[in-house]
């Protein structure tokens, strides 16, 4: 090349650091923590923006799972009679539909977070994981309404539940669900940023997951199929719904095994999702 006639310029590298390369994971985590205020502000902004797009706004957060629940009640409860063998089917359905809606909103929002945050990505340099995490924070903020509606509905719909101290375990279940969803949101954000077509596949995957999580039928239908039971009991969303129903509807202390399965899934997925997302940190501007 032209190096022969090139002027050699010596630079003291003391203060110089590479720009635009992926930082080590510890540095990345520290920067993400420093951006926590941005993350919450971004989540709040999206909550406000989301409610302005429709006339009913925030009410849809509660209305859509209610309408979902009514649909499932009509089709599965009345027509297909999946309610047989389920004590308090209405409460069962409400808990299932409301809690599952959180997971599906986190996953679909997480999948879109990089595409819809492209303007921010091109304008500012910040840890990109802020975007999918902000989606989960936004959904947690939204969840305040959904939770209130869920508890009111469960209390209002007959039969009357036995309210025990175990209701206090509900926040713990939800906390584990949030950890699980954060991992998932990071994972799908990375995939959709790399291959946009994944977004379409996620819709189908979520529907399959919904049907496989015993939202509107009972696992007791499969007592004769031990393999199916084993697969379902390993499904983290089934465990979330099962444990939530135990503490809220039936006043039963959930088995330690259920907690173990849920915690393993939640923290496992968070670790995997975080690593997978971080490993492609320097590619998100192009996607």
């Amino acid at each position, binding site marked *: 090349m032209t190096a022969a006639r*090139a002027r050699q310029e010596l*630079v003291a590298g003391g203060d*110089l650091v590479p720009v*635009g390369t992926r930082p080590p994971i510890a540095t990345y985590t520290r920067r993400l923590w420093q951006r926590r205020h941005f993350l919450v502000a971004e989540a709040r902004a999206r909550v406000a923006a989301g409610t302005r797009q429709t006339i009913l706004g925030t009410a849809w957060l509660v209305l859509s799972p209610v309408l979902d629940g009514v649909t499932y009640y009509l089709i599965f409860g009345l027509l297909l009679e999946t309610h047989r063998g389920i004590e308090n089917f209405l409460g069962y359905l409400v808990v299932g539909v409301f809690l599952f809606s959180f997971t599906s909103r986190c996953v679909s929002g997480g999948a879109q977070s990089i595409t819809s945050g492209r303007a921010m990505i091109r304008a500012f340099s910040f840890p990109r994981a802020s975007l999918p995490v902000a989606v989960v924070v936004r959904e947690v903020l939204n969840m305040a309404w959904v939770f209130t509606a869920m508890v009111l509905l469960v209390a209002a719909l007959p039969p009357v539940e036995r309210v025990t101290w175990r209701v206090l375990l509900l926040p713990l279940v939800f906390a584990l669900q949030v950890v699980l969803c954060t991992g998932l949101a990071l994972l799908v954000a990375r995939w959709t940023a790399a291959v946009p077509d994944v977004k379409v596949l996620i819709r189908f995957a979520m529907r399959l997951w919904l049907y496989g999580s015993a939202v509107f039928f009972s696992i007791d239908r499969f007592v004769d199929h031990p393999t199916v039971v084993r697969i379902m009991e390993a499904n983290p969303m089934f465990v979330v719904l099962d444990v939530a129903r135990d503490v809220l509807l039936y006043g039963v202390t959930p088995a330690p095994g259920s907690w173990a399965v849920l915690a393993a899934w939640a923290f496992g997925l968070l670790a995997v999702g975080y690593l997978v997302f971080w490993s492609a940190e320097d590619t998100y501007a192009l996607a």
Partner: protein
Amino acid sequence: MPWPDLVDESATVVVDDLSMRYHVTADADEAGLGRTARTVRALVGRGPSMIVRAISSVSFVAHGGEQIGIVGQNGSGKSTLLRVVAGLERPSRGRVLATSQPVLIGVNAALQPELSGAQNIRLGCLAMGLDPDRARAAVPEVAELADLGDAIRRPMKSYSSGMAARLRFAIATAANPHILLIDEALATGDAAFRERSEARMEALRRDAGTVFLVSHAARTIEETCTRALWLEHGRVVLDGPAADVALRYRRFAWALAKNRPNQARKIIDAARQAHEEVAVHVLRTPAPRGIARHARPRVRPRTPAGVTARTREEI
């Protein structure tokens, strides 16, 4: 080739042998493909691809207190260079080193259209890593620079493109970046805004910062910059004092505009002759005492506010 015994210690940005290539889809006819190949590509819905070399082997070292203009025709790689220096895109080859995170103000960067101008200021400041108190405190200052009046309370989607560009520029300067990259932002806005933003940039430059400015208007570069880079087809034509480089570029652009390609070629060849290629070597160990310092007056980046100190250590 003798090694210079001068070690440069005031470098703020080092661009070392940078290249950027893109794969883009191209027109099937122009890519010269046969019918079969075109049919196959039509079936999978992908056009033939071409490689575009946006930047080829660009090297330079920028220092504190410098304001560097980048001139060149459309498609010469000016904006790509800024995006890579800002770390927003990963180069195909080479690297960029900097003393702090460069901040790019581009005309294309949209914020949150649903939010008001004031809310966007706060969000932008938080995105750049300011803490909540500082972000809140920055809002009136930024609003004043952008001078949007009551529009600052309106959602940003109701802004004209000029208003939005002013707001973006004002937000980016709020973090007091040490290294500021500006992509044509000054072309927007009226004379009053231009004057205020030039004063703001002057203040940033006095804080020993480095400013990069991309502009089609060579005159802007001549007036506001200390140094200029002329890019053509992604390569550096000339790197030198702004007055000299911008003048040569203006003559070149004028000759092209008047349809005098021979004259234009002569100007650009002369510029290439005058250009001295640079090979950058970054010394990882601190230079031993006693070695002659770089002739350039040494400007240590001051850290006037906690903001800048914080941005620096974050890298």
